[in-house]
């Protein structure tokens, strides 16, 4: 989604032909997410279908310049003024792995955490090294690139902090984990019914009110 909106935002600066648009996107994102020309043209086709861009002049080399429509400019303003919504449904592989590992008798979750922490710290070292070796950080394209690297650095750091936190929580837990043997109770088939969930919610709320 952000590719579509980013291309639109670039076109809001003035008409571009497809290859030029790709180059503009690359230099504004430090070439961190390179796009192929096919993706650019697919996106332009969809933007045209939605009335957000239109084909304009053709230069002597045959480049078709795409220009933004008023509806497209309005979409750019709406994009810039609204927060990015992250989908709640994305599974976090590491969170699932640690949550499951913490329930497995005989598994040293501390080792699982340390293995991950070392890998994350190596990534951080690599990112820092790349940033440190970068050219003049005040040039506009270097700045764009380093902003993207920063986002990776902070995301990786957040993961390490969460690992530290998890390790401490487990260490302070009486059993250092919550090992679960396989349950002998057969699970009920099918999804939990909505009415069950709703009544449980209502019961929780009632408890909060009376507490």
């Amino acid at each position: 989604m952000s590719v579509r909106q980013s291309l639109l935002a670039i076109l809001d600066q003035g008409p571009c032909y497809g290859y030029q648009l790709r180059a503009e996107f690359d230099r504004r994102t430090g070439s961190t997410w390179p796009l192929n020309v096919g993706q650019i043209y697919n996106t332009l086709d969809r933007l045209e279908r939605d009335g957000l861009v239109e084909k304009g002049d053709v230069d002597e080399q045959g480049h078709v310049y795409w220009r933004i429509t008023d509806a497209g400019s309005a979409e750019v303003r709406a994009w810039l003024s609204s927060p990015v919504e992250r989908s709640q449904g994305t599974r976090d592989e590491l969170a699932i792995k640690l949550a499951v590992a913490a329930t497995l008798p005989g598994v040293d979750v501390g080792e699982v955490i340390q293995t991950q922490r070392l890998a994350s710290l190596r990534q951080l070292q690599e990112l820092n090294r790349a940033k440190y070796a970068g050219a003049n950080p005040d040039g506009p394209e270097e700045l764009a690139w380093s902003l993207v690297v920063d986002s990776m650095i902070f995301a990786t750091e957040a993961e390490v902090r969460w690992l530290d936190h998890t390790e401490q929580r487990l260490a302070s837990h009486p059993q250092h984990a919550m090992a679960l043997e396989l349950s002998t109770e057969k699970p009920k088939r099918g999804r939990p019914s909505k009415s069950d969930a709703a009544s449980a919610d209502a019961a929780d709320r009632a408890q909060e009110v009376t507490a």
Partner: protein
Amino acid sequence: MTAVLQLVGVTQQYGEGELSVSALSGVDLAVERGELVAIMGASGSGKSTLLSIAGGLQKPTTGEVIVEGTYLSTASPSELAALRRRSLGFVFQDFNLIPTLTALENVTLPLELDGFRARAASRAGRDALASVGLADRFDSYPDDLSGGQQQRVAIARAVVGGRRLILADEPTGALDSVTGEAVMKMLRSRVDQGAAGILVTHEARHAAWADRIVFLRDGRIVDQSTRDGADSLLSGIR
């Protein structure tokens, strides 16, 4: 290559008998010229004790600390003081500058205590301040400097006169993230120019400036991370 700093079997115990607590147990560590080593670990894991021992501020219960070939266990108090003045530089979280001295005087004080003539000390101090980007703040007092500038003065003081071992305890702890990064970059660059450094930090982002990250748990080194073999997130980008 010889290590600037070596810790061999260093143990630190507080208290005696059944009540004794081991802050460090059998720690071996060597730091070479051009190498920055970060020490990480939870509170109470022994990070600060290790730094105090490495800097000769505290004697270990057992084990040996060797700084540039000098065995700290057999050095006299005056030899230890001289070593701290000539070979070691400390950088602390709260800068520890003397408020009644200018930036330049703060940097040159250890040199003058070490018998440098005033002019030579001043020249070395100016060079050190210029190298941390403070050539225009020689005469400023700490109160007139920002936190980042004060920490840069502290780094200049830590490296002035050819000190080769920098011991930094949470040097970015009191700084915002951008200033903290600038301070780390400076520390990294001083080490690249031939110093050796130990950095105690709980922030992974700053520890990642090191060549090696050493993890302490309950006073023991439990793991080490090097920069070699990193899975490149950026391969193909640069």
